[in-house]
């Protein structure tokens, strides 16, 4: 009796003898399907959402801190270690807005070999998009892009007209309590 597996998904393929054995035992057959191929297919159809602890930092100190606000990260691991993730941050009372360019951590390290990876400084891969919300001025609010900053951190780049092309405490507007940002990214992880 032999069970082999397929290359990509690991689907189990029983031989004739194994099928005959399973067929003879209805309960075992049911268990086999539930625990093997069905499980694989279900996992592909609906990858589980996971939360992660986002590290929010800046190039200089002190690092930013949302105070009594919200900082949350969610991701799901897709086939072949692709990661689809989202981060939401809202500054609350007691916030600190850091010093110089912001950094936001990824749930897993980035896999260099799966991306176009330039060695030029400041030229990291574009991994996603973001929105920046000035709660007291809609005209300041804008879209942003997500750029790789290091193996496990990203930075946010601004629209045209900002003296700093990277989001930080006073760019593209002066951040304050109740301001917020949403990030959405997609990359292949080194896991």
């Amino acid at each position: 009796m032999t069970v082999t597996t397929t290359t990509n998904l690991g689907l189990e393929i029983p031989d004739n003898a194994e099928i005959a054995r399973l067929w003879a035992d209805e309960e075992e057959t049911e268990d086999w399907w539930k625990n093997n191929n069905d499980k694989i297919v279900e996992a592909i159809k609906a990858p589980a959402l996971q939360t992660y602890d986002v590290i929010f930092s800046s190039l200089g100190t002190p690092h930013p801190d949302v105070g009594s606000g919200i900082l949350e990260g969610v991701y799901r691991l897709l086939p072949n270690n692709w990661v689809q993730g989202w981060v939401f941050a809202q500054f609350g009372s007691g916030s600190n807005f850091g010093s110089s360019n912001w950094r936001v951590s990824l749930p897993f390290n980035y896999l260099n070999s799966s991306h176009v990876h330039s060695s030029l400084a400041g030229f990291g891969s574009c991994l996603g998009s973001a929105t920046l919300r000035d709660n007291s001025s809609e005209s300041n609010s804008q879209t942003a892009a997500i750029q790789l900053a290091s193996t496990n951190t990203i930075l946010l780049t601004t629209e045209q007209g900002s003296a700093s092309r990277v989001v930080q405490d006073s760019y593209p507007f002066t951040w304050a309590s109740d301001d917020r940002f949403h990030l959405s990214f997609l990359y292949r992880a080194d896991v």
Partner: protein
Amino acid sequence: MGTTTTPNLSLIKPDLSEPIPNWATQNESNCDTIDAFFSYTETDYSPTWTGTGGNPSLGSGGSISGRWASLWPKLIRVEIQIDCGGAGFDAGSGVYELTTPSTMNAVMDASESAVRGFIIGTAICIDINSNSNSCTMAVRARSSTTIGGILELGATGGSTWGNSSPFSWAQDDRISLYFVYLEA
């Protein structure tokens, strides 16, 4: 004895009269069919950068690098970086386009309808001499095999990525972008 097949993947469905010994072979065929559908490919490619009024050409040390991966059946993610390079860079003229590694599904490209061409990704345009010129850009399907860029309201030079928008492309400027599309 008998089998039928499903319409999309041609999976084999044995009926009640099909002998059990055939099931192993049929099951193996079905598993292999499904498995092949999820085969993973990831590889480099060389996008072609064009301008509707004249093609740009890279300067000394410049590069165009592309890499694509099959995230899901018929779902392709592409990443491109362009470093314009130094001496000898020619920005060309007109609206810029980049070629895709394969043909896109007609439902998403601008050749289906002049006003269509879905937004499929994001780009970062870097003017090496000016932070305030640098900006983000939406990536849009322009034909079944090309993409372009749509700029924010009020961007310098107009709404479409080109030789003078969102700034006048010059030596050592850079762009980094990614997009995801449905394959034909």
